[in-house]
């Protein structure tokens, strides 16, 4: 297993960027047709397209949020390890 090398600021930067991306993806609204087509078949096809778009973009948002959380958790892992080492160093002293 490769050793972990990373700074807190890097993980903070990654987390913040992915949080921002998540909000952008989730804010990308998919408009409703509002009866503009005047044809049931077209309205139905657009509804299917709209659902597919919403689900796909939701996946983008979910995945970005999950990765951001992952970066955040990795920072917690590093902090926990640091705290553990500090505790051992104090104990040794």
């Amino acid at each position, binding site marked *: 297993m490769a050793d972990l090398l990373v700074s807190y600021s890097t993980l903070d930067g990654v987390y913040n960027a992915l949080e921002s*991306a998540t909000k952008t993806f989730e804010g990308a609204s998919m408009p409703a047709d509002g009866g503009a087509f*005047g044809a049931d078949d077209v309205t139905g096809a657009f509804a299917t397209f709209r659902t*597919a778009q919403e*689900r796909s973009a939701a996946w983008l948002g979910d*995945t970005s949020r*999950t990765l951001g959380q992952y970066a955040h958790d990795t920072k917690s892992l590093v902090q926990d390890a640091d705290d553990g080492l500090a505790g051992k160093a104090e104990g040794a002293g």
Partner: protein
Amino acid sequence: MTADPLAGDPAAVTKLSRALADRQDDLRTGATTVARAADDAADWEGASKDRFSATVGTIAPAAQRIIGRLDAAIDVLGTYADEVRQIQDEAERIRASQLTTAMDSALTALSLSTAKLAAAAKDATDADARQARRLQSDADDLAATASRLDAEWDALVRRRATAERAASAGLSDTEVLGVAPSYSGTLGRMSDADFLAAVAAMPPEVLAAQDPSVADRLAGMPAETVQAWWDGLGGRGTAGEHSAAQDALITALPAVIGNLNGVPYWARDQANRLSAQRAYAQASGALRDAQDKYGKAVGRAAQAAAQRELISAQERYDQLKNFSAGARTQLDLVDQVPRQMITFHDGAPPLGAFSVGDLDTADGVSFLVPGMGSSLADTTQYMRAGANVLATQQQVGADTAIVSWIGYEAPPNAASTGNLGVLGETYADRGASKLASDLVAFRAVRPDAQLNVIAHSYGSTTTALTLARNPDLGVHSFVTLGSAGIPSSVPDAAATHADHMYAAQAAEKGDIAYIGRKYSFPHRLDPADGFDGVTRIDTTGTHRVNIHGLTAGQGSGDRGYLDIGTPTLSDVAEVTQP
């Protein structure tokens, strides 16, 4: 249905197109931000970065594909709006002409009627006859015009129908939906092999957008079929090396892949971590909302309701937080080994299982089944207890893994809740099918590995039922620790079908296991006392076990069944290693 040339609002369709273009801009911005995050992570190195990179690299291409589909839809809408606009203009012209013609026809008919009477009178002149003939000619011309306009209208109706069909087909096209037009209709009728091939060919954002029935069908596949399919996507793979198709499946359907029997455990781990992180993020939000609601509740009834909601949200948050913490909690091992989140079910309560050690490769695997009062909130505690067994085995060079299996809803703690479910078999009965499912799944992909079950307290009740009902699991050792009793339907060790059965029963403070057995209904048997075929494990000596738990609190002076230094730990480690 007949198309209406005047229906619809082309200006609104054009506006809809512009809104889709705005959405494209948002998605581009999001994709750019993700790419920046990936760049920012350049100096992040290690296994955790590999996992990050594998997923982050899928987002920007997926966003580009979604933007491309919006492009295709914008084209379709643009063409439709132009066509509808032209048709409506033409329709209005025809309708106006029809109105004029109808009015002229009515007036002409009236005049013609009068002229005919005049021409038929005794004193009629030649002029009267000419007038009648002229008006008849005008009426004939108007009738011809009306007929022509009707034909033009019919042609316009057909043109409108053609425009609607084109728009409908265009919006259902692969370029717009990202999947063949009739996919959702045909997937359900495909053979398993064709279905799996179709699923594997979908990009993640399209797969994630599929109807839930796709996930349901996948989840119901036999383990052998799934295993062959997965291996066909680029080999069994490892966390570090696997195919793009396997990655797409993990990121698109984590809740399915994470629990899909036949999929290797490294992949289930990655998928379940995604699912658990999502669930944890949602639980964090729900807890904040519940706290906010409680703070604003006015009146006794509203406060009581808000308090119940808050307690429930806090409980769920604690469970998911501790389960996620299993990935990083400190474990005292001789050699660090991979940890795998091998199942995760985001239900009420959430359930899951966390392995210490690699289930895809370990020579021996033990499932640690907890008892009364256990939940995901105790994950790290069980992992630490299991790690004691693992570390003991590592000291003699064994390659093993231990799974903290919190995969069933255990009966609540009777002492703290007053719930006496632990005395019955209902919880064990329900849990047995879940445990069986996970053990069968393990056997399907690891027929070569030694499989053991270490069951604590009521977990031994659940496990006994599981093993008795599933004779082909090939369990090497079934170990009970402080058993809450074995159901009378499992009268001896042979009925569990395990090669060996062991039981440890300490002189516990509070006699918790004893009480659980004594007041059980139907009455359950003590596997450590006269249970035929069981080898008893020692709990006495200098470091004797004196509490019901698996581990005691630091500095308490007590010892649980799997605490370091106890004879029980040594024996359990010995009988569960290859």
